[in-house]
């Protein structure tokens, strides 16, 4: 860990009964960096994401977060109100299923504005203006600000979830399979959007995916997991072009070449 590390985890261990979900995992994340966690189903990717974001408590180990003032916080020793406040402001969480994250009975503008209102903004005009601005940034027509999310397509819903998450300008975003369940052309467009937003706003992101193409496109660094163990970590190109561990080699070779 260096002086400017944004998020740093050491010695994370977690078992679900007899199943080891995390075995002595260490992860570092620097500001503006995108870290991909890859591996097959059940390898502990999402568990690691939940532990890093404070949603799930590990049996052992520590997660440090550095706030904008440079002070370090132990995420799992934080009082619940502070952690929730962090999730509302400095952090963001993008889920695989946007329907679970959005309020489906509330208009698109209301969904985007919710985090602003939770932060204490009480000016309707300003909230609406910011919501419209963010809809534009995720390439949703501003005229749809008052429409219900149920009238949106799957790709639009995911972009709406991203707008809703980024509206408070978080420094760190956790993404759990953001392109899962979308068809390939929609995926490509969404990946392009995420890449440009993350670069422009200098957001650090932890991205869970089973899709190596997604990791290659978005991530600066990559962590490969198998049965709760980090088997390989390094720069994305380095890991994907020259895999050292047998499991990584298997993963890379099993990608279909179009």
């Amino acid at each position, binding site marked *: 860990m260096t002086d400017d590390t944004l998020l740093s985890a050491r010695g994370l261990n977690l078992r679900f009964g007899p199943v080891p979900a995390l075995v002595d995992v260490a992860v570092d994340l620097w500001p503006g960096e995108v870290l991909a966690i890859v591996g097959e189903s059940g390898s502990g990717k999402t568990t690691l994401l939940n532990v890093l974001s404070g949603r799930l408590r590990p049996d052992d180990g520590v997660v440090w977060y550095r706030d904008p003032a440079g002070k370090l916080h132990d995420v799992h020793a934080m009082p619940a109100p502070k952690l*929730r406040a962090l999730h509302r402001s400095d952090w963001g969480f993008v889920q695989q299923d946007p329907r679970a994250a959005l309020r489906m009975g509330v208009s698109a*503008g*209301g969904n985007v504005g919710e985090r602003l209102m939770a932060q204490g903004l*009480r*000016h309707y*005009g300003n909230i609406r203006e910011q919501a419209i601005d963010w809809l534009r940034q995720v390439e949703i027509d501003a005229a749809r600000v*008052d429409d219900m999310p149920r009238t949106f397509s799957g790709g639009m819903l995911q972009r709406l979830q991203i707008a809703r998450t980024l509206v408070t300008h978080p420094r760190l975003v956790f993404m759990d399979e953001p392109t899962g369940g979308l068809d390939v052309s929609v995926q490509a467009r969404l990946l392009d959007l995420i890449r440009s937003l993350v670069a422009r706003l200098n957001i650090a992101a932890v991205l869970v995916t089973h899709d190596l193409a997604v990791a290659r496109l978005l991530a600066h660094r990559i962590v490969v997991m198998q049965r709760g163990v980090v088997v390989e970590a390094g720069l994305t190109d380095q890991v994907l072009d020259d895999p050292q561990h047998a499991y990584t080699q298997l993963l890379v070779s099993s990608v279909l070449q179009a």
Partner: protein
Amino acid sequence: MTTISGYNFAYLDEQTKRMIRRALLKAVAIPGHQIPFGSREMPLPYGWGTGGIQITAAILGAADVLKVIDQGADDTTNAVSIRRFFAKTAGVATTTRTDAATVIQTRHRIPEAPLTANQILVYQVPQPEPLVKLEPSRAETRRMHALAEYGAMHVRLYEDITRFGQVAISYDYPVMVNDRYLMAPSPIPAFDNPKLHQMPALQLFGAGREKRIYAIPPYTNVRSLDFEDHPFRAGRAPHACGLCGSDTSYLDEVVVDNEGGRLFVCSDTDYCETRRDAGHAGDAA
């Protein structure tokens, strides 16, 4: 009216009253915070005021003068029955006059006449949880109250302004009590919300089915939720009372014939009578 024998004073036994008073003390100590209590079966159905009637029973003394109103009226079934209930079981004096009462049990209204520090207002509450339509889990709403996370309530107001151009909550309009707890003021019209603020009288809220008691102590800040550019406004039918001519009181709309005839009258019957006795008259009088 003669009292009936075989019951304790004001129907409830002393242990139960003591339990309710303990909950009331906690409620007054934490304005707007919901306190659970062991709600009892009462000889009237849920939704008719079982919470309010238990609070009234617990605070009533032999010297008290009781007034009961339902939608502002003293002469509706619910008001008449509860007034008779306490006249029979406690032998207390009852009245329909707001200024003569020491305890006023109410459903859906706050009297028009200003209340004083010598009076207690007891509300009947069907749903004490203001967040219930936004968050179905009680465990989660308790957490939201504990952390004062009330952003979701503003999402509801935002949606109303987006769809209707204004906040469309006409009754049970959510309020912040003492700048800390979000509270459902029971189904009083939003028109009555400003009266909650800095009221000299003690205000007690009882929800019998939901088993919750909460309170607003005298002279407490109570603020209706709003946006800076869409401030709270208390709505009222744009008419004068047909009987007493008041153009400031809250009005009920009454259909009077089959030709679409309408009469607007004060919902507070005591206020209307007092004004008529003083010589005021409306168009239909």
